[in-house]
């Protein structure tokens, strides 16, 4: 019986293989036969028309195959001027190769062997300036959707052999290529291993963007805080690689991931490093205040007007009370109404095409705002506060963190309504605990504040000048902490010397 089965299998072999049966259902599956003009060898090309570049086939492959010396498959390596020619007898790789844009070449005389010639069609969007992380000063290149192009952008900024690029293929259906980048001799081994392990453990069918990876490999996926930073700036990636961090590039995504990160990095824009340190520090402080303002100001308004009238001096209270005199709603409803309006505007603006989006902004912001004050639904003081808070939340340089901050306002509002100022502090304590517990690749997320590390504070709230930053960040536990030798840098000894 067994023997009979085996025999049967042997007989079916000349018939179509599984991959062929499935692929034949697609219309772009192409198979064409040719005859070599010199040796009269019959050969057959199999490929998927939508994946290959016809120009390469017509100019770089076919003429050589038709007119060159072609007797065996080995001859292809000599005749076809392409670096990526492979001859194999492994049936299992056929579908993968064909689906990656190779053409398969078979000769009747050698049915067991197949040659693969690379003819992929690369559709690359041309480089464009960064849109989300725009900076007035500094390079204007941004990543695109092609892995090769992105790696090129990084490599040319760090042309040293220490830059290591390791590739993985993730996603059972999407077969997405993911590259892990780090600097050998600088980046901490534990961090590299953690990233590699987490990436190789990813189980998912289709990974279409780097944000999938973020969610699949973060330490705590139930946190509103993003734990991996994503950027579209190649210069930022070069900068963080030199610091000793790890970059993860995902094919098909214009956003490259950075790990490990700390909370403060989400509030520092890369432009800070292009500016003079005094200005950069000033802008960072402004941004820090903006975040606190955006988070706390509406809850404080609700807390004060619901519970703590006494907190406000008489004169200021007069202004507040006058503006609220005809409002029928309690402060919490008033605040929620306005906050939700702003969220609606933002969401509508984000979903609509740019030009319509702007109009919506104007209509929503001005018309709804003014109308609701005139209709007596909201006080104009609160309108100012909410608008300012929304504005402040947009100063966050990282888009994902801005979203988090806007979301966090709502629990704060609810606690403010419950217990007034006490509730705000309570909500703050919850947030603080959550942040203390958070880690990014096992490194504390709140560093350098907790655990307190004075040396890393040089690049936190303020950014000290480069000549004060001779060491790499402590929390990365880099193998080589010195960025440059300070002694070599010339120093003035005295006035006029």
């Amino acid at each position, binding site marked *: 019986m067994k023997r009979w089965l085996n025999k049967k299998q042997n007989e079916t072999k000349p018939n179509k293989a599984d991959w062929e049966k499935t692929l034949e259902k697609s219309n772009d599956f192409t198979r064409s036969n040719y005859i070599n003009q010199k040796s009269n060898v019959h050969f057959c090309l199999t490929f998927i028309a939508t994946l290959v570049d016809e120009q390469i086939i017509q100019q770089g492959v076919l003429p050589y195959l038709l007119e060159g010396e072609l007797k065996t498959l080995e001859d292809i390596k000599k005749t076809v001027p392409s670096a990526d020619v492979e001859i194999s007898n492994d049936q299992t790789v056929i579908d993968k190769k064909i689906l990656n844009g190779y053409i398969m070449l078979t000769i009747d005389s050698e049915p067991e062997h197949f040659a693969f010639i690379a003819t992929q069609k690369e559709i690359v969007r041309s480089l464009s300036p960064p849109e989300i992380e725009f900076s007035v000063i500094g390079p204007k290149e941004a990543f695109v959707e092609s892995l090769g192009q992105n790696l090129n952008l990084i490599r040319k900024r760090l042309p040293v052999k220490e830059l290591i690029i390791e590739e993985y293929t993730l996603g059972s259906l999407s077969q997405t290529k993911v590259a892990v980048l780090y600097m050998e001799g600088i980046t901490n081994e534990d961090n590299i291993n953690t990233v590699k392990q987490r990436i190789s453990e990813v189980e998912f069918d289709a990974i279409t963007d780097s944000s999938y990876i973020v969610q699949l490999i973060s330490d705590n996926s139930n946190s509103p805080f993003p734990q991996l930073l994503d950027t579209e700036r190649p210069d930022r990636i070069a900068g963080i690689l030199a610091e000793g961090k790890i970059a993860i590039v995902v094919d098909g995504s214009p956003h490259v991931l950075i790990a490990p990160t700390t909370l403060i990095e989400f509030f520092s824009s890369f432009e800070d490093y292009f500016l003079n340190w005094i200005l950069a520090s000033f802008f960072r402080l402004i941004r820090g205040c903006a975040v606190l303002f955006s988070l706390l100001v509406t809850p404080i308004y609700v807390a004060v007007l619901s519970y703590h009238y006494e907190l*406000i*001096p008489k004169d*200021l209270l007069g202004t507040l009370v006058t503006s609220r005199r005809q409002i029928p709603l309690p402060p919490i409803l008033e605040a929620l109404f306005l906050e939700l309006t702003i969220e609606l505007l933002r969401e509508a603006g984000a979903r609509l095409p740019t030009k319509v989006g702007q109009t919506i902004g104007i209509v929503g912001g001005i018309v709804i705002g003014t109308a609701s004050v005139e209709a007596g639904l909201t006080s104009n003081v609160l309108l100012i506060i909410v608008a300012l808070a929304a504005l402040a939340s947009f100063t966050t340089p990282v888009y994902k963190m801005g979203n988090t901050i806007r979301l966090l306002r709502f629990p704060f509002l609810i606690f403010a309504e419950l217990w007034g*100022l*006490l509730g705000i502090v*309570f909500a703050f*304590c919850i947030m603080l*605990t959550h942040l203390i517990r958070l880690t990014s690749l096992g490194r504390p997320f709140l560093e350098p504040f907790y655990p307190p590390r004075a040396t890393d504070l040089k690049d936190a709230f303020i950014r000290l000048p480069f000549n004060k930053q001779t060491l790499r960040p402590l929390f990365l536990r880099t193998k080589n902490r010195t960025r440059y030798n300070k002694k070599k840098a010339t120093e003035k000894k005295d006035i006029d010397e």
Partner: protein
Amino acid sequence: MPNLPIEDRFKISPFLVFYMITSMQIGIGVLGYQRLIAQYANEDAWISVLIAGSLIHIIVWMMYKIMETVDGDLVTAHIYVAGNFIGKLLSTFFVFYFFTYSLTILRSYLEVIQVWMFPTMSIFWFTLAYLLLCIYIIYGGFRTVVGIAFFGIVLPAYLFLIFGFNLKFANFEHLLPILDNSFKDILLGSYHMSLTFIGFEIVLFFYPFIKNPQKSKKWAHLAILTTTLLYTGLMMLTLSFFSEEQLRKSIWATLTMWKIVQMPFVERFEYIGIATWSLVILPNFCISLWVASRLLKRIFNLQQKKGVFLISITNLIVINFIDTREQVGLINDYTGKAGFIFTFLYIPLLLVMVLIVKKVKKK
């Protein structure tokens, strides 16, 4: 239970001991210790504070001596001195001690909230919320607890700048004449500082969690020095800000001092102060819960996860039964006394015992 060594990644740097001690010491006592001390020592009350603080340095030295000798926490010391069974029995008292401590702190703070902010604040719901937060913190491990202690000191530190407003109205002649009171009265004042000063004894319980415990010594002493100077300074300011009569009537002198703050956009600053104070209370409450549950683990081998729940639920039930001002005062007194007995009587005694046992064992 085998004395398992703590893994390195759960340990804390020696300097964080500073924040642990200060955040545990500064708590509910600071809001109103002045009246109590001034009752005995009058204008010399600040000397009482100074004396109490200096004595604590000796106790801290003793604590470190005990822990170095037995190389472990208080439970190890007890077992070292009295054997496994009696040692663990002795340690059980400290579960109650820290349970009461946490209860005292939270209930006194609730008293402040009820008197100053929300007269109808529900004890049950607030305690429940606070306990849930603490469980969340403790589940994050010891490092999270220390983190809360750190922020519990650093973030509310701005409150001490506020006393600058009181300087304008301070009359430092109130402090004169110096040393007009009998030494006994001054010492009585020192004795009543117990509740405000206790908290430093927690080192006895988290000692195995310190990296390089030798190095943490100086930080422990620095912490005591800081709180002593802080309390002394605040005491002097209070004495010179209030008249004797006024102070006698101010149960929460510190809060009353905040009342005079006036800024263009804020009046009645004590509301902000009290709200911020919940961040100061949090480490107090949280660390005592942590210590109590840690002790349960060390003594009864109970998982700390379950221990925290057990203590929290007991806390939640018992706190409802303390509902009058007198009872709050009473439990404050008892905790103060227990703290005094623990730190000033029990620790020296334990040190002597440990040293004797060490000599016997050597022979």
